[in-house]
């Protein structure tokens, strides 16, 4: 085996320029394959990483939805959160309401996403500077409602800590159904994790938000659950599904599965293009190995004359295909990561894509899949030329080589 590997590798060096060219071609197709592997589960992997970092093992949403995908709420969400918090293995259950508000800052009227949380320290966002909402929420008598705004509101709208804002449900006169504008004071600036590129967001106490909405406290758009014993997350999911009609409990895995079902375009696209890349690589290696075989029939015949068996000749040619694939991997990965970075930036420029998410994510599985597919293709591509080489008539070939 060692002698075959030695000969196969030396065979690559026979014509360095040509080998370099072939490797360039294989690197490009390998890069495309890597990109498609990254794309296939990239958004889910990226989302999973963000979700895991946030520290919430379970999320409870209105049945059949994803968080903030509509106006539907979990009925009695606040009460459900209290019940969940009492379950074993649960550290905290935070009911959250998400809705759109208009924010008047000076003369500017800015549509914003408002996140209603039960006081500061919820973990639904991270305070960057300033301070968080008061832990127990504010009371109407204590003056302007405290809010934490996101960085975009600070950089694009010039909103500063300490500034006064006016929050309202609509841009025009107050709707007849209730709710009234509220004066708010900015106490801090935070990172809201899933903000879109130009999205303004603010965090506000849940009761203050309900007052602005003109709705009673009780429902929730989402319940975030932090586990003291993460191993019990699935058990909690089952309990919630059994006891809370109108709500779905999602572990991180379940969340990703539900999100994944809405990303079929990328999965199918990556499958089609990945298959095409493999096919091109296969054709390239087969063509190169077969054509280069034609140039050295005499050498093959001599190896057979020296005593190399048909099987070993076939293995030698097969190894050449594998060697080409193997040698192309560094180039494929380097190029693939570069191209993937640019493609990722391109796709992230689409509307409604949160800033922290990526489409092209290099996971160990994506890398392994690429390596195995590339090596497998190289092996398969060597099969036909290997068969041709093994069937070579030694005497006839030697005679033919002399004549030519």
């Amino acid at each position, binding site marked *: 085996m*060692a*002698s075959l590997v*030695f*000969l196969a590798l*030396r*065979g690559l*060096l*026979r014509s360095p320029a040509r080998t370099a060219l072939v490797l360039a071609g294989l690197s490009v197709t390998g890069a495309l394959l890597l990109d498609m592997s990254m794309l296939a589960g990239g958004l889910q992997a990226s989302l999973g990483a963000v979700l895991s970092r946030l520290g919430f093992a379970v999320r409870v949403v209105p049945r059949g939805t994803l968080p903030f995908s509509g106006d539907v709420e979990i009925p009695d969400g606040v009460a459900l959160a209290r019940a969940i918090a009492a379950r074993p293995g649960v550290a905290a259950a935070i009911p959250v309401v998400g809705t759109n508000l208009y924010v008047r800052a000076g003369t500017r009227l800015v549509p914003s996403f408002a996140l209603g949380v039960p006081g500061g320290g919820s973990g639904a966002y991270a305070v960057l500077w300033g301070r968080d909402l008061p832990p127990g929420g504010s009371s109407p008598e204590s003056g302007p409602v405290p809010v934490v705004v996101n960085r975009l509101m600070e950089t694009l709208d010039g909103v500063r800590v300490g500034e006064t804002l006016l929050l309202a449900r609509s841009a025009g006169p107050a709707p007849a159904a209730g709710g009234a504008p509220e004066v708010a004071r900015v106490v801090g600036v935070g990172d809201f994790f899933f903000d879109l590129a130009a999205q303004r967001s603010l965090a506000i106490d849940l009761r203050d938000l309900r007052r602005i909405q003109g709705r009673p406290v009780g429902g929730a758009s989402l319940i975030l659950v932090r586990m003291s014993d993460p191993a019990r997350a699935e058990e909690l999911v089952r309990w919630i599904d059994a006891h809370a009609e109108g709500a779905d409990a999602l572990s991180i895995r379940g969340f990703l599965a539900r999100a994944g079902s809405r990303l079929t375009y990328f999965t199918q696209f990556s499958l089609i293009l990945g298959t095409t890349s493999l096919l091109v690589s296969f054709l390239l290696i087969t063509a190169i190995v077969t054509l280069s075989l034609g140039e050295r029939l*005499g*050498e093959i*015949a*001599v190896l*057979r*004359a*020296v*005593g*190399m*068996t*048909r*099987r*070993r000749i076939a293995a030698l040619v097969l190894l050449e295909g594998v060697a080409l694939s193997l040698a192309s991997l560094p180039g494929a990965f380097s190029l693939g990561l570069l191209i993937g970075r640019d493609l990722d930036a391109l796709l992230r420029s689409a509307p409604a894509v949160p800033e922290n998410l990526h489409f092209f994510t290099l996971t160990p599985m994506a890398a392994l899949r690429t390596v195995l597919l590339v090596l497998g293709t190289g092996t398969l591509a060597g099969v036909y030329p290997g068969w041709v080489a093994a069937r070579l008539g*030694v*005497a006839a070939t*030697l*005679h033919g*080589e*002399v004549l030519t």
Partner: protein
Amino acid sequence: MSSPAPPPGAPEEPSSPVVVAREVVREYRMPGGTVRALRGVSLEVPRGAFLAIVGPSGCGKSTLLHLLGAVDLPTAGAVTLLGRCTSELRDGELSRLRLRHVGFVFQRFFLLPMLTAEENVALPMMEAGVPAPLRRERTRALLDRVGMLPRARHRPGQLSGGEMQRVAIARALANAPDLVLADEPTGELDEATGREIVQLLREVSRDGRAVVMVTHNPDLAALADRQVRMRDGTIL
């Protein structure tokens, strides 16, 4: 004619021929009809013999050489190599037989261009599983024997025709074969270099190996111990 294979490990009788061809026929089916390259040729090659097969182009010399070296099989008749009938052996067995007992030298040298002279010589030993230290030692000895040790690290593209053929002879001797077959070894060389090569082959036969050389050059053929003349697929 076929003879039973010798028991494993049993030494060959010193006087028994290395290779025997009995009434061998070799035919090729072509689109225009069947071509008979050999028409019932019989030949024995004893150990230590230096035999030259001479004849005009197309008389079947190379075909006979290929049959003697188990590179090809006869259409009829039998070739017995070291007591074993080649027609009765499978391809793997034939390969092993060639690897350990037959060395080839070709007109076109057929050195692997991506290997150095040293590596070309070592190749059959690698294939035979000779350990690396022993391999290195034998390779250097063989290259020294053919006068190519100073050029051991050079690739074929950096060698002259005569130098390449010397390396090819060293390669043919790599696994200490019983039989060395040289097919027009001087065909690409000038007269003087050709003589040197034939002298080298003569020395090889003095080591006790059978050497069969195909040539169309009567002057070079005269340097052999014995000449066999062929014409139209038969021995004259």
